[in-house]
């Protein structure tokens, strides 16, 4: 996890510096906010990963000499198929149409989105799909 963490911390350092230069040469708040926000975007996950690396050490994928057997074991659960992303996507589509064309799209949109959120949660808890 070390390189992963350093990439993100690098993002934070770079945008920290550019943000400081930008602020003290322009005193323009909009751009400064974006640069500071980007700095945080790198800092938060980056320092979490670094802490994690310090605690857990190297994983097989971080070690150049790891063998295939080192990675043995269950790696994750992957859903085989699910209708809910489609339902959620169509809900978002309708929601957007509601803003462009009028509110009669609004209620089916909310209905679809809620159904999909319930559906996807239930599916995850059942864990039935391989």
């Amino acid at each position, binding site marked *: 996890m070390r390189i992963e963490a350093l990439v993100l911390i690098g993002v934070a350092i770079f945008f920290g510096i550019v943000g400081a230069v930008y602020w003290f*040469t322009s005193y323009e708040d909009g751009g400064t906010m974006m640069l500071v926000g980007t700095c945080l975007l790198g800092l938060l996950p980056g320092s979490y990963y670094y802490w994690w690396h310090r605690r857990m050490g190297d994983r097989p994928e971080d070690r150049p*000499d790891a063998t295939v*057997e080192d990675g*043995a074991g269950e*790696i994750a659960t992957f859903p085989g198929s699910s209708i809910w992303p489609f339902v959620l996507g169509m809900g*978002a589509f309708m929601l*957007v149409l509601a803003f462009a064309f009028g509110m009669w799209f609004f209620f089916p949109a909310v209905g679809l989105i809620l159904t999909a959120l319930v559906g996807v949660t239930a599916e995850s808890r059942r864990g039935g799909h*391989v």
Partner: protein
Amino acid sequence: MTDLINPPLTGNGAHGTSVIDIIEHREHAEHGPTGILKWLTSTDHKVIGMSYMITSLVLFYMAGIMALVMRLQLATPNSSLVSFAQYNELFTMHGSLMLYLFAGPFAFGGLANYIVPLQVGAPDMAFPRLNALSYWLYLSGSITMMMGFLVAGGAASFGWVAYAPLSNATNSPGAGGDIWIMALVLTGFSAIFTGVNLVATIFYLRAPGLTMFRMPIFTWNMLVTAILILIAFPVLTAALVMLFCDRHFGTHIYSVQGGGSPILWQNLFWFFGHPEVYILALPYFGIVTEVIPVFSRKPVFGYKGMVFATLSIAALSTGVWAHHMFTTGLVLLPFFSLLSLLIAVPTGIKFFNWIGTMWRGEIQFSTAMLFSIGFLFAFLMGGVTGVMLASPPIDFFTHDTYFVVAHFHQVLFGTAVFAGFAGLYYWYPKFFGRTLREHLGKWHFWLMFIGFWVTFMPQYIVGLLGMPRRVAVYPSYLGWQSYNIISTVGAFIIAASFAVLLWNLWISWRKPVVCGDNPWDAHTLEWFTTSPPPHHNYSHLPPIRSERPTWDYNHPEAPAVGHGEGREPHRRDKVTVGQ
């Protein structure tokens, strides 16, 4: 549950069946969905990636047809093929389709989705259902965008950058603008979700031994692109929502009358827009960095240099956003022109490394390689004119002329089209276990290459003569017409090349040429599994000891190369490696 990394024989008990087989078996035995439902419910990154690629290619052809109409209009000075308003709609939609719905999604949603999990040895993306959601948002965003042509008042016509105050409700009334905004909100979320997914896949699902500095450059570039997307797209989406509020809910965020500022739009937009240029470019750099070593039969030259160049391009591209506002005179010119000139350095390093990879290699001029070389030429030209544009005096002079149109087409066409189709010809055998017809591919390449220069070189000249961009008519006495005619002819040559591609896709589908799992004798992990890969990709993995695991496995006599220090070609007869 997948227990993938077990080699088949040490894994699961007496019969030596891997878990993959069991899963496959169960899925077929159970009531797995079929037909259209299978597509609608699929969470397989390969299905999703393929859907992305097909959708974005359809949109590419649509945007190309719009380009042809515009070129026909411009072939004569006072043409009345389309009205002024229609011309504005055409270039806005052409630009928006090409940038937001083709160039980004083809590489980042399509190729990356398909290839990155394979290149890191993962069974799927980290969040398969989120991945499916990305596609549905992208598809519905694209449909929303195209609906603009159907509403009264026509599609959006404020250009792909939607400058305030041009994009407000007074100057651009009608549903067209709203639809454009909403389409981009949808596709923006889609890109953000894909970005999250790719970062998680690359950080958490790599195969044992596949350290960060053994990842293929394509995967590296996709990682960096994903980070750029996470930086840039939220700003765009927020800016769009505020634009929508200005248009409908009476806020005055971008209008002077209400105490807001139109410059704020430019500030926000280019914080997205400049990284966007590299969000579009880096994935394509990744493609050519895969293709060139394979067809030079050498490892990539300067692997680590490539990675650091990618990282610094990404950093600088976000740092230089304000250089687009040179002509508004509001920003500190020296700081931003310095940063934008600096970006030439890592780009130059990449260029040098591509040449270095080919240097003394055994170059095979396959179609994919030809397209990569075409990319190098186009990108070189676009890069040189880009450095010219980055210096403020020239920018004042050429701003909003055809010089700029020619410049960004050379860059965008060079990357998204040349490199993009290099990727298509290169990975097509991976997708289907068949090849595209090479001789038709060469026709496609040469027609497109010639058409490309014929289309865009005259535009530099006519731009220097002063022809402004975004005009539907121009005076006949300024001597601009002959250049425009040449440019239009070129556009039709390009169109012909894409007809050849369609024919190639059709004939290669109807009369397949089966080619086996690894026809190019390629380097990276994705070529280790079968073509097309099975559900969940790998039944077993090779040991990973370098950045080229598949090559190492197939060529045990050639020493493994770590971190790109090999410079000599690995000839099969005579091993000359200066490790």
